[in-house]
């Protein structure tokens, strides 16, 4: 398979608050490929969104990317650029044209004080060096593309005048304004009702086919993953505990947490935003993350002492990676031995 457009290596993002340090992202690795969708899944507060923001270098204070690499393969080939170390000015040229973001809660993600046209063209004017009129034309075109009816009229309306579904479409149009190569969709559908969800997902898939977009789809909804993703990264407490192609993950989940998640795929009729109830216990507080394997207090297949004392190292097999002593890595034991 071709080189990834974007590969994240051992990413660390931390928040230094009055109460102490929160390791929101604590050593995440994954690759994103052209024309493919990477699904990042996990319970809320596991660091999904922070990962996304880290990639774009827009983590709010007091958060900072503390370590790791975010390697972006430039358009014309050549050695990959590490976004983690890129200066702000250069980073601004990445946001929009290279990597774009689609957000949850489209209502909140728009300013209510400007027309959607204004908010879309802004990026175009900034990055694509088009004139006002041309930019407007393109904006209308985009709106049309994402399936906004009467785009030439809608363009002068304000976000609060649109329905939720339309808003999300406009959001996507805005993200695509400068032909990004990577689109990060952070819970793009959680705020929407089921039917609209479906429409938006179709739209994304459709766009991906048309433009060979690489999509990072962040969600807590295994259903959405199943529908959309080619590859999956399962995150728990700031770590990717398991990564791999979607079928493998679904058919042969290796990490107990993944299994737990799969057991809890909500039915299509389920209300959005429902927590994943069937995993016993709740996510521990970020300050006191458990020693050893962070998941052990909730783990149904715990091996015993080792899980509580040692952190399981990444174990690679074929295209997959998992962090769990069930699959080896127990200190002292010969590699590869199955208990």
């Amino acid at each position: 398979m071709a080189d990834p457009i974007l590969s994240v290596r051992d990413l660390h993002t931390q928040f230094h608050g009055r109460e102490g340090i929160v390791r929101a992202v604590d050593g995440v690795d994954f690759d994103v490929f052209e024309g493919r969708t990477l699904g990042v899944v996990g319970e809320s507060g596991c660091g999904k969104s922070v990962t996304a923001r880290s990639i774009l270098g827009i983590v709010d204070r007091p958060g900072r990317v503390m370590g790791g690499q975010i390697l972006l393969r430039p358009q014309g080939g050549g050695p990959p650029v590490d976004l983690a170390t890129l200066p702000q000015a250069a980073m601004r040229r990445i946001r929009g044209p290279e990597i774009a973001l689609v957000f949850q809660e489209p209502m909140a993600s728009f300013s209510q004080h400007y027309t959607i046209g204004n908010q879309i063209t802004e990026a175009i004017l900034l990055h694509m060096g088009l004139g006002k009129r041309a930019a407007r034309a393109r904006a209308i075109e985009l709106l049309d593309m994402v399936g906004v009816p009467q785009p030439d009229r809608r363009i002068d309306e304000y976000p609060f005048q649109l329905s939720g579904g339309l808003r999300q479409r406009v959001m996507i149009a805005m993200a695509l304004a400068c032909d990004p190569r990577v689109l990060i969709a952070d819970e793009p559908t959680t705020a929407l009702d089921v039917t609209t969800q479906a429409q938006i997902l179709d739209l994304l898939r459709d766009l991906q086919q048309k433009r060979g977009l690489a999509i990072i789809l962040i969600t807590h909804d295994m259903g959405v993953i199943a529908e959309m993703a080619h590859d999956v990264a399962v995150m728990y407490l700031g770590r990717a505990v398991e990564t791999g192609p979607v079928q493998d993950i679904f058919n042969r989940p290796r990490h107990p947490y993944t299994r737990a998640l799969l057991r809890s795929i909500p039915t299509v009729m389920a209300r959005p935003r429902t927590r994943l109830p069937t995993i016993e216990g709740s996510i521990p507080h970020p300050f006191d993350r458990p020693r050893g394997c962070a998941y052990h207090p909730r783990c149904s297949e715990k091996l015993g002492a080792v899980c509580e004392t040692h952190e399981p190292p990444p174990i690679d097999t074929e295209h997959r990676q998992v962090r769990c002593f069930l699959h080896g890595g127990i200190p002292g034991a010969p590699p590869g031995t199955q208990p």
Partner: protein
Amino acid sequence: MIAFVVRRFLLGLFTVWLISVASFTIIQLPPGDFVDAYIAQLAASGSPVSATEADMLRKLYGLGQPMYVQYGKWISRVVTGDFGESMEWRRPVTEVIGDRIWLTLLLSFAALLITWGLALPIGIYSAVRQYSFGDYAFTLLGFVGIAVPNFLLALIIMYFSFKLFGANVGGLFSSEMTIQPWSWAKAWDLAKHLPLPAVILALAGTAQLIRIMRANLLDELRKPYVVTARAKGLSETRVILKYPVRAALNPFASNIAYLFPFLVSGSVIISIVLGLPTVGPLLVKALVAQDMFLAGTIVLLLGVMTVVGTFISDLVLMWVDPRIRHQMD
């Protein structure tokens, strides 16, 4: 949108009406009807009033009839611009007030502009640079601004200017100019005298607005649309000025609606301390001398001024917040 304006306007009218009632009450407050007072005053100054004359005056003002009738007579004369005669000045009230009302308005408005001019940038600064030295400095300054009542500030400034220049800071014109009719020279003279009192007047309001602006902006900065904007690759300044600041403006604007009455009130007091030729000193003198038509009229005019100010700032608010503008679409 139209509906919004209309509703505001009607509310304004209602307020004006209430204020007119308040003013009328104030006129009625002193014991005995004011013709008695009028007669007593003239008697005291050695000019007696004959019974027939007193009756004429009573009829003229509908005294002895029920209050609402008197109010009716009064208000109907007021709307025709006849506010009655000032006992002390022996002239129509309107003439006595003359320029003063405009000077009051001017002073308050100047203060309003200063308040905006200062509060906006400072508020943004201390929100964006939260907990920075500058932030703390301005916050402290703001609190002092709130804590020092403006008449006190005026007093202190008067003291220092006396110590330093030995001259009076009072007045809005230099003594030669007071006599002159309006001219560019006089306007310029006024422009030179205006800033000091205006700043004194503005300080308290500024302090409050800075706090409001800061708080609002801090909220707005946390909103997702800021992230969206950043994700577009806009420069930080652009992001902040275009989005959160714009959003923070509207509570700001709506607050101004209450700032204006506050300033008008303030102008009354500092005018008295600094001896400015606004309606302030006139009002206090009139009240002390129970020159009730004058006093009532001033209260009424100030009230109306504030209502108009409030109405205007409502329109401003509407302009900055499209949601209100499109409410009715």
